[in-house]
């Protein structure tokens, strides 16, 4: 069963044609139950707007979606009781303690006090629960947000940039919590621009760029399989030029390691034959396993400038 399904979901801000902004442009994809799904995209690509529509804070201007099989205003309202979500930064009452903030969230979700203590324990905040939210570090705020999403023991957890602004230790803690939740069979929909994190944490992903889905699938299929090859030769320029004209190559790019080419068919003999015919003799030819980051940069070319943060 699908935990989330989007059909041509669209959001346009503003009504006048000249000034309106198409933030999300007819996107469609699905998240199966039990998946840990990474939703990737450069800043301003439409990730938060998409999540806002799913959680009911932003009204779509077109298309539709289902949450845990439910659709329509009443169905979605009921389904959201089985969803835990955060959007952008952790949003809590700054003057209230962590525990009191969870008390408000628990009252909204119709959950009792014992569950608050369980969730505080799970995210390691029991000792600081009586302190005011405004005194928390960013990592603690993110962990409190995770605790709030888990209060109603949701089937689907939607997290928007949960590792944003965290140090490596904080990121590791969040990853660990997500792993625990995934082990408990929760469906997790995670937006992030930390690609290495998504590659480590997620089973499936979708990439959004300028409001449109440009790639979608299983992480293992993209980074583990396929017919990409890494080639090296004495004259890298000539090798790159020759591969650009090779009819079976669907994409060719330079990396620090050499030339990476994606082939239509996994026929390495043809490649060597073709290059030898061009007077180029290879010093290295091997199947290449691209990282999610490379896939991302491949499909979001043109948005590379905004990816500095991702690449670093």
């Amino acid at each position: 069963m699908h935990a989330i399904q989007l059909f041509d979901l669209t959001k346009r801000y503003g009504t006048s044609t000249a000034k309106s902004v198409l933030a999300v442009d007819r996107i469609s994809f699905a998240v199966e139950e039990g998946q840990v799904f990474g939703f990737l995209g450069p800043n301003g690509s439409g990730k938060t707007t998409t999540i806002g529509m799913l959680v009911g804070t932003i009204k779509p201007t077109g298309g539709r979606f289902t949450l845990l099989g439910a659709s329509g205003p009443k169905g979605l309202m009921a389904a959201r009781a089985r969803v835990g979500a955060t959007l952008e930064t952790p949003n809590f009452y700054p003057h209230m303690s962590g525990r009191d903030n969870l008390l408000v969230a628990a009252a909204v979700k119709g959950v009792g006090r014992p569950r608050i203590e369980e969730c505080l324990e799970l995210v390691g905040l029991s000792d600081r629960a009586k302190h005011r939210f405004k005194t928390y570090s960013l990592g603690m705020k993110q962990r409190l947000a995770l605790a709030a999403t888990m209060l109603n023991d949701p089937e689907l957890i939607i997290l928007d940039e949960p590792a944003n602004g965290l140090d490596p230790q904080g990121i590791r803690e969040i990853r660990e919590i997500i792993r625990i939740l995934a082990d408990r069979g929760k469906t997790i929909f995670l937006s992030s621009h930390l690609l290495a994190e998504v590659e480590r944490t997620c089973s499936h992903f979708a990439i959004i760029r300028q409001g449109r889905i440009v790639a979608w699938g299983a992480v293992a299929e993209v980074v583990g399989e396929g017919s990409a090859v890494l080639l090296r030769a004495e004259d890298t320029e000539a090798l790159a030029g020759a591969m650009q004209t090779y009819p079976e190559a669907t994409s060719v790019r330079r990396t620090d390691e050499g030339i990476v080419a994606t082939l239509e068919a996994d026929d390495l003999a043809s490649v060597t034959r073709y290059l030898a015919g061009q007077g180029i003799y290879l010093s290295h030819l091997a199947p290449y396993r691209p990282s999610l980051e490379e896939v991302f940069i491949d499909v979001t070319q043109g948005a590379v400038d905004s990816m500095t943060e991702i690449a670093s």
Partner: protein
Amino acid sequence: MKVVGVLLRIEWLKTVKRRAFWVAVGAFAVFTAIPAVEGVRGARRNPNLSYALPESWPDILGAATGIGPFFAGVLMILLVAPEFTWRTARQNVIDGLSKERFYAGKVMLLAGLVLLFIATAVLIGVGGTLLSPSEGGLGILRPTDLSYMGGLALSLLLVGSAGLMLSVLIRSSGPALGILFLYLIVEEAIIGLISQAGGALRRSAEYFPFNILDQLGDDLAHYPEVLADVNAKRTERGLESWEFLDVEVLAVAALAYSAIFLGAAFLSMRQRDL
């Protein structure tokens, strides 16, 4: 009914943790206590100065009508607008509260503040009369006292709903407070200009929101026999008589303005993204 209980509990949890709430209620209590203390001290010093029920209701309620509505308006802004800057309104909706229910919670908060302010004023005033040596007249509450109490409730509702509307429309407490006080000045200026004109235009100024508020909060509008005495004295001195709109008209106007403010806030809450 269960939903009402849940919304009240949520608003209670949020409100009792706000320092602004306790400061505002405390300040309101102090302001309403001052005339009560003066009344009791006066009655103890001078037997001719009475502080007892039902005669002292205009004093008890007068202190509350003077400042209570603005405390209600300011407090509504301080309690509601930060929900948008902190994005907790958004988080409440994400956690499962519909926008409509979030808004209903705020209307309940407003109703709760109206009741709390009236109860505070009444308790302090009645408590004062219990400490006073004065003997009261017949009964505890006359129809005119009830009318004045109703005027206080409507005044609190009128400015409180304006505060709620500004909070939801502007979503930031500083500018919302600024606009609330700016409106007071603007209305005063407009009334000043209109009053130089004559006829229907001049009469229309009486129906402006804060003019309605002024009249609702004036004890003379609720105690016709006192108004008659005052006007008789003014006539003796060659002064123009004071006139007020009927209490029923004032009540309908205050309810109509409150409905407009609450309706505008509801539409904004429903239509705008969080």
